[in-house]
């Protein structure tokens, strides 16, 4: 983040409300614009706060990002602003990609996106001429049925401009949660072990089987078949939940998450959770999800635990215990270990105890990190000891004497040459129609966090932002007969919420914006579970709704 803020000549922010969602990084960008004269292009349907600092604000129609990006690349190619040397030396698939981009001339793109042609030219010039340009995005790009395609197309843009692997350039997804990067790195995904080692790769299975004391294939003990590691890709959260209804998922162990608030289509999620055989929830507060839990185990907050978080730039940092565990709550790692040990006690034939990492007896958190070091190439040299000694480490950091890697892909891409992917525009899954004429987008606000379990319990934050507000354009408000603040009812095919309207030109006409911080009016009552086919991410950013006065 530091290199981006310091060296980028221009920024292209698309689908990130940076100053509200990553506030401290947002201020770094503001400083770069104001004091260093960096140019800033923001593409967002909403007039979010960072647009105050933008050289140019593009207000594309929601769900037309690919058309916009392709349109910009068309102009870049037309004007010859691409980095041909980079394309020739470091990439492949350029011709096929170019053929696709050529289908997106400015007038056609303008029609699709609603952005005037001259703004497209202006944006392409800022992004194309100022090198390096850093591209930043967040959930505004990914929470679409075309989330993966959006991201790949931004990769195309940066390869086209030769902005990859350079300080101040690159593709910079801003990770939402404090340790979402770490949860992914640690194998909290259905297709990979730690450090993205594939669950379908026989060598990887062999490695983890040996380490954890399992057989790589099925084995018979006393007439019973013992299965080793599964080589089938597992289910994503967006597949597990509906899986409850047709008997595919029978139990869930949820650690510190609140799917009733954070998953799309709340009514459906509630219906699923009502049907589950057994739900274990490990939490710090009773939540909307705990209503459905069979067992509720009290974990601890970050102030009570020792360990590491990995931030959006792959920087691993210490979390240090400041206060004793509250009440009879327990360390989360202890709880997980206890459950593991107790399940294993009933199936002792499963694990061969002589294997180096078969055991669940950890002296403390740094012992867990030692095991991570041994099995996770990119974390090989990241120990608590080094971090406590003040070293600043970003993975990949394979060995104990490696200094870490602040910037990836400086010499070559992981796969060797960067591959251009031809990407076409696909319209969103649900579009406004006669019954539901408005478009709803969702997200968070500065003063609250996700499902709101923490921030709704912070007194001062509630004083500043104490209830759900529906952002609505003055034109729509006038049509509806709203006069100042009034309650509105927003209905979609899934559900209904009632909340105060905030009449503001932050949102364009025809669009409303709602958050999911408050259980009595959560936007996820309205959203739908149409998924990106690859990432299985729901299209939170676009639902069709109708708005009425209450």
């Amino acid at each position: 983040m530091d290199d981006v803020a310091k060296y980028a000549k221009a920024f292209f922010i698309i689908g990130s409300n940076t100053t509200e969602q990553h506030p401290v990084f947002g201020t770094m960008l503001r400083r770069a614009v104001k004091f260093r004269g960096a140019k800033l292009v923001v593409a967002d349907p909403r007039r979010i706060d960072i647009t105050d600092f933008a050289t140019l604000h593009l207000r594309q129609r929601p769900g037309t990002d690919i058309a916009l990006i392709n349109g910009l690349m068309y102009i870049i190619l037309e004007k010859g602003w691409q980095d041909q040397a980079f394309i020739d030396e470091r990439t492949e698939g350029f011709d096929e990609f170019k053929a696709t981009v050529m289908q997106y001339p400015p007038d056609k793109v303008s029609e699709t996106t609603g952005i005037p042609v001259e703004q497209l030219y202006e944006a392409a010039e800022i992004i194309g001429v100022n090198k390096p340009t850093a591209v930043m995005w967040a959930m505004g790009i990914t929470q679409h049925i075309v989330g993966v395609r959006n991201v790949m197309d931004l990769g195309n843009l940066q390869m086209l401009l030769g902005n990859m692997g350079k300080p101040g350039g690159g593709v910079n997804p801003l990770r939402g949660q404090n340790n979402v990067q770490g949860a992914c790195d640690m194998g909290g995904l259905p297709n990979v072990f730690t450090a993205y080692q594939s669950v379908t790769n026989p060598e990887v299975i062999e490695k983890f089987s040996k380490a954890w004391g399992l057989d790589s294939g099925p084995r018979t003990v006393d007439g019973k078949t013992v299965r080793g590691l599964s080589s089938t890709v597992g289910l994503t959260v967006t597949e597990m939940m509906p899986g409850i209804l047709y008997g595919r998922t029978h139990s869930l162990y949820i650690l510190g998450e609140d799917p009733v608030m954070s998953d799309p289509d709340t009514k459906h999620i509630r219906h699923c959770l009502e049907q589950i055989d057994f739900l274990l929830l490990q939490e710090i507060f009773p939540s909307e999800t705990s209503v459905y839990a069979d067992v509720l185990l009290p974990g601890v907050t970050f102030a009570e635990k020792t360990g590491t978080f990995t931030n959006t730039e792959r920087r691993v940092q210490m979390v240090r215990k400041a206060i004793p565990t509250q009440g009879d709550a327990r360390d989360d790692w202890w709880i997980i270990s206890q459950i593991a040990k107790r399940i294993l006690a009933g199936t002792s034939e499963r694990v061969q105890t002589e294997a180096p990492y078969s055991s669940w007896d950890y002296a403390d958190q740094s012992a867990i990190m030692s095991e991570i070091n041994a099995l996770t190439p990119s974390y090989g040299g990241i120990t608590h000891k080094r971090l406590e000694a003040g070293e600043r480490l970003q993975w990949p950091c394979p060995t104990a004497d490696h200094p870490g890697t602040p910037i990836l892909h400086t010499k070559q891409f992981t796969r060797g040459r960067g591959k251009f992917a031809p990407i076409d525009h696909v319209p969103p899954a649900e579009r406004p129609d006669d019954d539901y004429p408005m478009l709803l987008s969702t997200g968070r606000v500065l003063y609250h966090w996700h499902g709101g379990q923490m921030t709704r319990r912070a007194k001062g934050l509630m004083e500043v932002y104490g209830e759900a507000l529906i952002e609505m354009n003055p034109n729509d408000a006038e049509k509806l007969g709203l006069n100042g603040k009034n309650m509105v009812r927003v209905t979609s095919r899934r559900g209904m919420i009632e909340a105060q309207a905030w009449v503001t030109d932050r949102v364009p006409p025809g669009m409303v914006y709602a958050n999911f911080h408050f259980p009595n009016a959560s936007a996820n009552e309205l959203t739908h579970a149409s998924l990106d086919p690859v990432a299985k991410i729901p299209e939170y950013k676009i639902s069709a709704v109708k708005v009425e006065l209450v």
Partner: protein
Amino acid sequence: MINLKINGQPIQAEPGKTILQVTKEHGIHVPTLCYHKDLNPTGNCRMCVVEVKGGRFLSAACVTPIWEGMEIQTQSEKVTKDRKLTLELMLANHPQDCITCDVSGECELQDLAYEYKAAAPAWGSKGTRYPVDSDPNPFIRVDMNRCILCRRCVSACAEIQVRDVWGVAKRGFDEVIVPGAGTTMLEARCESCGQCVAYCPTGALSNKMNYGKARAHQMTKVTTTCSYCGVGCQFDLLVKNEKVIGVQSNPNAPVNGMALCVKGRYGYDYIHHPERLKKPKVRRYLLEGKKKPRDDGQWTMDNGQSSTVNGLWDWVETEWDVALEITAKKFAQIRNDFGADSMGFLTSAKCTNEENYLMNKLARQVVGTNNIDHCARL
């Protein structure tokens, strides 16, 4: 390189530097108050004055560039007397209430007054000039009586947060720091990041949430990483009597330095919220070995308030051993009945790497399924 002499000692320094930068590099102590390394120097408090040979007045070290042949005295009698007088002028308009002030012990004005043995002069102002706790911002306590007009808050808001909430109104004796055009902070578009508090050298701007809870020497500081977004800001948790009473910027934080946002700096009170779960709970049907009660249309799930189905869905607080044993048995049984792939694990982007690794190991090694995910998509 430029040749100059500080206190008679010959020194070489790069051109373009200020006197203060050179003295800092050479470990020569020059007191400062309005100066802060993160902010552009404004040279208005006159604490860092030094004597430059040939100069008509004393020069503020923080804004005076060096030149060839410059001769500087940093501790001459003239300099020390002048600094003491500056402090006395500040103290003349500063309440003599260190004994009840929240930042006593961390106050830069107090430290300098101590260093220079400066006391409030007999002719100093006696009453309060401004309302105490004058702004309704829920996080930031404003007491302009304690302000020494150093303008660090103005610079911090303009240069770090880039929000320009604070400004200077009026002139001379009436000069005062105000938000916006004399409005409230929030009306002046304050984002409540607390940067102004972090940079304030006195108790003029302090934190409402821990006001009166502890002074510097009564608390311990633990450096840790924020639990909100993915930027990875670090800060110090302030702890007194085993309770988190506040958050303070740690200037050595790798990503953010002194900067924090409203959630990171002021969103910590959930830690000691009375609703925290403090005991394991299980539904009564599990303790009684009965079947899970199902929604039959007459009964809907709620948080155990409903007593239909004979209270089988009520929460019962138990010991850890009971809750863990019930859980492990249930999981073992479900794996036995429906196979490992009938079980799902949602790990947490709020938890540590170590905990996430263990969830991955639990699902894969102990249970034998790859059904593990978290809220990265949500």
